[in-house]
């Protein structure tokens, strides 16, 4: 493999076409397939995330879609829970947790997200896999692109783009399936009776997938991704990054396997350029940490194979920290440097937010009440009481119907008028209860007094909400 790799060194700039793409003039990158520890992890993560992504919307819970962000009904279903627009705070909390997790493991181990879990990486991997299955390995792909159009080239290109389009459309369909019930969507899709917006978004997302994973690839990371630009603020000298060890590798140079590198005055780097060939963003990791590096570790796998072939120790390119390379501590002490103020602060904040959100979720009462006093001023009833009328908007945020008892407190002798003390609300329904509140005039002096309504479910006393309003005197 190493010998083959050495023979395969090709003057890339001369042999590939330059293309004017949407963002910059670039050479088409033909990442060479690589196998190894990190490549296996990436495959595992591609499979895991995509099984999750394509599979989740098909799961059912209580006879409905388990995960559904029903935009048309303005309700988010997540397993047994139903979230309403009023629960936006939980989504915000989730986003904050996602952000801090990203900060934390970026500070510890660099761009793990970019290299292994980002949809851009994952779909690029899938598209590259299809490309390799149809067009062959890196060299065959380059040859195919150089050669004139003939039946074989047309056939292969058509097959590749068709396969890409099918995958892209399936991705777009699944995406829309998270926002509108996927089973109905599948039936409409089969009968071609999709609504205009569903059709639009399936094709829009599908087209974006096709473009991003098929053509733009590393350009998305280099020019379009905001995260890639500011990741450096989370890095410090103890952050694990994909690093070439120049003290071991230099002076680099080709040599035969039998050459003793020490007497020849050479470092461990055989300058085979495998690390460049496997790089999806087409950089040379030997030039140091660069913002284009997405931390995919393909160069580590590639280099380790060459080192094994040469009989040299692995890890000329490895996950290590800047301080190790500077010789401040050895690789085995990396773990001891994971705990440092930056990571501790991120961890504490993360734990605090997770705990707060968890508590809030546990204590969340799926009931919401708003009280609006009738605009008609206080009036006197036939039996001489002062009466105020309120409209209580009761939202049952749970997926089953409830009966609620309504009571009022705040003034001595305050009571509810007839037919005001009970409300029935359907599952996930909203009910406007008109409530008459009465009081004896002798009990009230102020122009307006605060009152409090309590709404409690009859079948589950924990479902209780209180809401404040004011009671007006005549």
């Amino acid at each position: 493999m190493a010998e083959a790799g050495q023979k395969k060194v090709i003057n890339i700039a001369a042999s590939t076409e330059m293309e004017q793409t949407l963002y910059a003039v670039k050479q088409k990158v033909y990442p060479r397939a690589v196998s190894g520890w990190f490549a296996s992890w990436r495959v595992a993560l591609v499979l895991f995330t995509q099984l999750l992504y394509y599979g989740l919307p098909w799961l059912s819970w209580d006879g409905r879609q388990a995960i559904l962000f029903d935009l048309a009904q303005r309700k988010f279903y997540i397993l047994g829970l139903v979230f309403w627009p009023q629960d936006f705070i939980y989504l915000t909390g989730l986003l904050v947790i996602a952000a801090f997790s990203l900060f934390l493991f970026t500070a510890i181990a660099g761009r793990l997200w970019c290299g292994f879990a980002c949809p851009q990486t994952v779909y690029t991997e899938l598209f590259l896999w299809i490309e390799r299955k149809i067009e062959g390995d890196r060299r065959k792909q380059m040859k195919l692109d150089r050669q004139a159009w003939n039946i074989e080239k047309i056939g292969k290109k058509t097959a590749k783009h068709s396969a890409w389009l099918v995958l892209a459309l399936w991705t777009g369909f699944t995406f829309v399936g998270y926002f509108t019930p996927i089973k109905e969507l599948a039936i409409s899709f089969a009968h071609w009776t999709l609504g205009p917006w569903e059709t639009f978004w399936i094709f829009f997302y599908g087209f974006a997938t096709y473009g991003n994973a098929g053509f733009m690839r590393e350009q998305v990371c280099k020019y379009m991704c905001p995260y890639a630009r500011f990741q450096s603020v989370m890095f410090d000298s103890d952050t694990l990054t994909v690093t070439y060890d120049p003290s071991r590798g230099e002076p680099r140079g080709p040599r035969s396997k039998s050459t003793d590198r020490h007497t020849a005055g050479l470092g461990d780097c055989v300058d085979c350029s495998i690390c460049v060939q496997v790089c999806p963003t087409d950089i040379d990791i030997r030039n140091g940490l660069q913002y284009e590096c997405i931390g995919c570790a393909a160069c580590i796998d590639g280099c380790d194979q060459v080192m094994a072939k040469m009989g040299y120790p692995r890890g000329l390119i490895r996950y290590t920290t800047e301080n190790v390379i500077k010789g401040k501590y050895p690789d085995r002490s990396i773990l001891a440097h994971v705990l440092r103020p930056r990571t501790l602060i991120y961890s504490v904040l993360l734990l605090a937010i997770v705990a707060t959100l968890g508590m809030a979720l546990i204590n969340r009462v799926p009931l919401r009440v708003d009280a609006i006093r009738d605009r008609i001023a206080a009036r006197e009833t036939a039996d001489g009481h002062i009466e105020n009328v309120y409209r209580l908007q009761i939202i049952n945020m749970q997926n089953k119907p409830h009966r609620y008892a309504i009571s009022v407190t705040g003034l001595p002798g305050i009571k509810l008028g007839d037919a005001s003390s009970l409300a029935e609300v359907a599952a996930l329904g909203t009910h406007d209860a008109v409530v008459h509140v009465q009081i004896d005039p002798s009990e009230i002096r102020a122009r307006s007094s605060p009152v409090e309504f309590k709404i409690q479910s009859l079948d589950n006393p924990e479902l209780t909400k209180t809401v404040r309003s004011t009671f007006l005197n005549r």
Partner: protein
Amino acid sequence: MQRIIQVLWPSFIAAGVMDIVLFTLLDPVALIYQDAPLFTTRLGAYSLGFFLFWLFGTVSSALTCYFQCSTAQLNKICKSSEPKN
């Protein structure tokens, strides 16, 4: 082409965020304009809202690009927003 994308892409991100925030706070079918509901379907409202925000963002980004031109460049025809020495 490159500049068109430079204008369209950030506005796209901003429009997505704006759309989510606005329609979380506000139910589009509850909007009444001159005694008639403004939208019949929510999905349509979200989508139209998104494109409207995208348009506004595009105008804003394009103006930023446009105003980057120095007076000297404007006296000719503004071709590039890159700083000229």
